[in-house]
């Protein structure tokens, strides 16, 4: 069964049709990219899939269950998490606190149990710290654990945001322009990180990206959008040679 199945997705804002006729499927442990010129509607698709917009039409199935129109937090609990173009960390909280908050849904949240520091509560908190430590190590931020997230460098913030997503043990990770603002070295590291996440943590990745070399390197399938509509879908090889794609990016030859 495919992990994510999007069919006939349409999003209108009043009279403006932002996105229409979007169909694609993401398999478990697959890396799938959505590309297209600016304003093509890629982030709109993300927002629909992750529950931040209610689609005007179409269906979105996560592991066979319809999720179109559901609220963001419910979809997140089903295992679909995302990063944001403008990095949305909890800026005045520390890196480790960001990772603790992300585990909220898995922790012992009973008020009385916490107030009286019952052993089950303490164990849950300890476990949460251990997992946070693991992920901080994983993205190389352990030494900055107690640094306020807003005080991290751009690249560090991006890594923290990804770690924060992964700590929720998702099935599908949506990355919105993860390489934006990264230098080539950092982009290479990102490449490895995404592959590792897929290999070791069993997660599928759906990403929006402008960095063509990264996209071609890492994706197994690509959807190309322009003006809110799909213009091509296939493997990187197919996309690379698709005339419609070339025209969209480079204009008429």
């Amino acid at each position, binding site marked *: 069964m495919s992990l994510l199945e999007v069919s006939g997705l349409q999003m209108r*804002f*009043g009279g403006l049709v932002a996105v229409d006729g979007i169909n694609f499927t993401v398999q478990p442990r697959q890396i799938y990219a959505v590309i297209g010129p600016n304003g093509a509607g890629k*982030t709109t698709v993300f*927002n629909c899939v992750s529950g*931040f*917009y209610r689609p005007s039409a179409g269906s979105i199935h996560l592991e066979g269950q319809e999720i179109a129109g559901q609220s963001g937090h419910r979809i997140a609990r089903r295992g679909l998490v995302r990063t*944001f173009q403008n990095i949305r960390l909890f800026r005045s909280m520390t890196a480790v606190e960001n990772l603790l908050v992300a585990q909220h849904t898995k922790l012992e949240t009973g008020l009385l149990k916490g107030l009286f520091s019952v052993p089950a509560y303490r164990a849950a908190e300890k476990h949460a710290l251990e997992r946070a430590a693991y992920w901080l190590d994983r993205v190389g931020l352990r030494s900055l654990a107690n640094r306020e997230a807003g005080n991290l460098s751009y690249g560090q913030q991006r890594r923290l945001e990804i770690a924060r997503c992964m700590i929720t043990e998702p099935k599908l990770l949506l990355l919105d322009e993860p390489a934006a603002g990264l230098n080539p070295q950092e982009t290479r590291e990102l490449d490895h990180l995404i592959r590792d996440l897929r290999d070791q943590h069993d997660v599928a990745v759906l990403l929006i990206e402008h960095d063509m070399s990264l996209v071609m390197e890492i994706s197994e399938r690509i959807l190309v959008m322009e003006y809110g509509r799909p213009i091509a879908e296939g493997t990187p090889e197919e996309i690379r040679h698709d005339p419609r794609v070339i025209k969209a990016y480079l204009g008429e030859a």
Partner: protein
Amino acid sequence: MSDFFPQFLQQVINGLSLGAIYALIAIGYTMVYGIIGMINFAHGEIYMIGAYVGLITLTAIGTAAGYPVWLMVSVAVVLAVLVTCAYGWTIERIAYRPLRGGPRLVPLISAIGMSIFLQNYVVIFQNSRDLPVPDLISGMLFTIDFPVFTVGMSNSRALILFVTVALMIALTLYIGRSRMGRACRACSQDMGMASLLGIDINKVIALTFVLGAALAAVGGVLIGLSIGKINPFIGFVVGVKAFTAAVLGGIGSIPGAMLGGALLGMTETFASAYLPTEYKDVVAFSLLVLILLFRPTGLLGRPDVEKV
């Protein structure tokens, strides 16, 4: 039946003139919110200061001096407008401009502080008690005699309606046709872009505050003349109600402020006819809560999509 219609008509007249005042003040809220996305909590106190300057002017002229009423009232209004524009400009410059662009709570708290400051400033340096306003605009514009009930519109109420409508038209023309008006509209759509295009957004924002203050001042003077007394506390409740009117009509929309004012005025007047008068304020506050719950964009506003 025989006395329902005339009573109804009277309520409509009362409601519209009450609504006109709300509309005048609501415009200030809606313009400021439309441009910088912030509720100017101190706006109600501006209205109150307008009323005070009006009374001060009238007292200074000396209402027994025999000048024609229209001249005295006009001078009072002009001076009230001048002074409140200065207040509006100064408040924006001191308490809001330095805080632009920061976290949302900060300018809001500054505005609340400003509101408290202004109210108490007037309490201390003027009087905290009611002050009587000379009854310059007395008499009825017209009366219609019905068998059981006489419907009438007083001159002061008529003046309020007339002035409000005239000012609305003038403002709409200004915003719609003039260069500055275009700049205002551009800023309320996309501030960043407007500034990149060379529009001096500081000037536009200052103008917004000043225009709002001017209208509120007119409202203050007219209401003082109509009701016959003023005190430093009239700004608070009227302020919240005018904000309700702005939201009802659709925040950011000037026609919306007018519509909202009219609707709120009518609702409040009709409600106070059937409920104990103390509850009429509850009606306004409840209306505010209800609109913000069920239709926060108001009647004429555009739905706001959250930018993710």
